[in-house]
């Protein structure tokens, strides 16, 4: 009994250092990284062009796939906001560490390096909520519409779905980043990954607009559970039961990716320890 309390205290203090890493990253992002403001501009362009696109498409129709034009406009604004939460730096961070050879120095410290990368990304995202997400919300509201949630009772589901999509997205990024341990440079791969996720996740065009076959294939990949699932919940597409079913699959993807992540992480760490950083 005594040892378990001891363990608990230990773990709590352990979490503290990652929280401090997060806090430091937050300070750092708030103070130094002005480049992030460029993203507001980019997201504004994406929002506006998609708004015109959907308005043109919906001209003579009331609804497509059970979704009307108004919901679609909400969808794109929230999608742009969500994309801010899903900005990851872990792949670049790993690539830089491998290039500069600082993996070794990171590993000398009594922290798990991936725990550290995660805390850093989380800190960065917290900063971006103020630096990017709020401005995008304001711009979207002023130029397109107020993106209200249709059925507010689904809010808890939406929040959980977003948290899970954040995790899935981060794990995919971290797994991509780990390729850098093998190949060194992954610049091009990062770009490929970024656009793959944007296209295949329904972030710009929901996959229910795709041909049935393609849509089916995409549903079996983890990407739609990053954007489309939480966004569908937000605009109230479909029934509550559909959300729950989707979130179950989302949860299984999370489990699978987590397991795969720990498996690869162990291998990668061992490889670095054997071959040198």
């Amino acid at each position, binding site marked *: 009994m005594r040892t378990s309390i001891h363990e608990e205290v230990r773990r709590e203090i352990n979490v503290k*250092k990652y929280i401090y890493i997060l806090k*430091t990253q937050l300070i750092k992002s708030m103070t130094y990284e002005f480049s992030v403001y460029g993203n507001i501009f980019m997201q504004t362009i994406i929002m506006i062009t998609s708004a015109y696109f959907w308005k043109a498409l919906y001209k003579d129709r009331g609804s497509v796939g059970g979704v009307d034009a108004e919901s679609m406009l909400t969808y794109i604004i929230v999608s742009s906001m969500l994309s801010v939460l899903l900005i990851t730096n872990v792949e670049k961070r790993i690539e830089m560490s491998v290039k500069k050879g*600082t993996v070794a120095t990171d590993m000398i410290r*009594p922290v798990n390096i991936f725990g550290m990368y995660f805390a850093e990304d989380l800190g960065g995202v917290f900063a971006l909520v103020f630096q990017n997400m709020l401005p995008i919300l304001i711009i979207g509201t002023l130029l397109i519409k107020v993106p209200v949630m249709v059925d507010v009772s689904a809010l808890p589901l939406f929040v959980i779905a977003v948290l899970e999509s954040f995790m899935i997205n981060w794990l995919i990024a971290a797994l991509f980043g780990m390729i850098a341990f093998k190949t060194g440079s992954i610049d091009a791969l990062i770009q490929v990954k970024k656009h793959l996720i944007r296209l295949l996740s329904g972030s710009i065009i929901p996959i229910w607009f795709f041909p049935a076959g393609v849509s089916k294939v995409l549903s079996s990949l983890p990407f739609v559970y990053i954007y489309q699932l939480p966004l569908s919940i937000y605009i109230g597409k479909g029934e509550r039961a559909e959300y729950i079913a989707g979130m179950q699959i989302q949860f299984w993807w999370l489990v699978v990716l987590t397991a795969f992540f720990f498996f690869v992480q162990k291998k990668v760490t061992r490889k670095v320890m*054997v071959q*040198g950083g």
Partner: protein
Amino acid sequence: MIKVENLSKDYLLKKKEPGLSGALKGLIKTEYKTIHAVDNLFFELGEGEIVGFIGPNGAGKSTTIKMMSGILTPTSGSVYIGGEDITKHRKEVVKNIGVVFGQRSQLNWDLRLGESFELLKHIYRIDRADYDNTLDVMDSILGIKELVDKPVRQMSLGQRVKGDLVAAMLHSPKVLFLDEPTIGLDVSSKFALRTFIKEINKIKKTTIILTTHDLGDIQELCERLIIINHGVMMEDGNLSQIIDRIAPYKTLVVEYYDEEAPEHERCELVEHTDNIAKYKFMKKETTAAEIIADLSKQKNIKDVSIEEAGIDDIIKIAYGS
């Protein structure tokens, strides 16, 4: 404090054959060549020792240091720090280790130095009191407090290395690895750094392992020297003893009034140009005074000087073999 036993590290290197056919062959079947980066090292370091760990580029110094600090797994052999096997208790042992790589900073480029320190304070879970105390000590030696508000990206190399040293010492490690800490520094920064190393060694009884190519560092700091080359231990011992063993001679330079130089039975005339003659003699057999006395009986001497084998000669000889 540190015990290194049978420590070896082999790397597998892909064998590449030249030309297009070689490249094609490599796609189908790769052959590997084993490189012995570190070969069967044995040594023990006591508490509070400062050891110069030297060798030419590619001798296996960094590999050894990486293995000793637990970030590289040895092919065979083991490293004990404070009695604990580093490969088995890595997470515990790293708390007793501080590392400074002169060419790679561990500080966060985008943070102020003080913020980097605070971060380390949390990562190593250092008590506020201990932390303040350590920082005071560091400040009295290096004057680090005037730098804490400066972003690391704006620092000069000298300031950055100072910051790195303090960062490595914040958690009061028992062992400090310094990998070429003075590389690229100016004279006054080097001086400050050496003073710092001496002081923390005295105050905190830190065991220090120093790799360097700077002979001044070795002369100033190290009593003991470990020389490795091609991964093999060449020398391990007291600095002056190593000098005595590798270079047991001195050279006497005599300037005469004319070009004629007499021989002497107990030394060797190694060089003779114009009025200057150089005599090499064994320290055990005779003394410079004796030779000068004998020579001055035969000819008038204008001036004398004695050249001693220095650390650079030792290194040259040790590396050459």
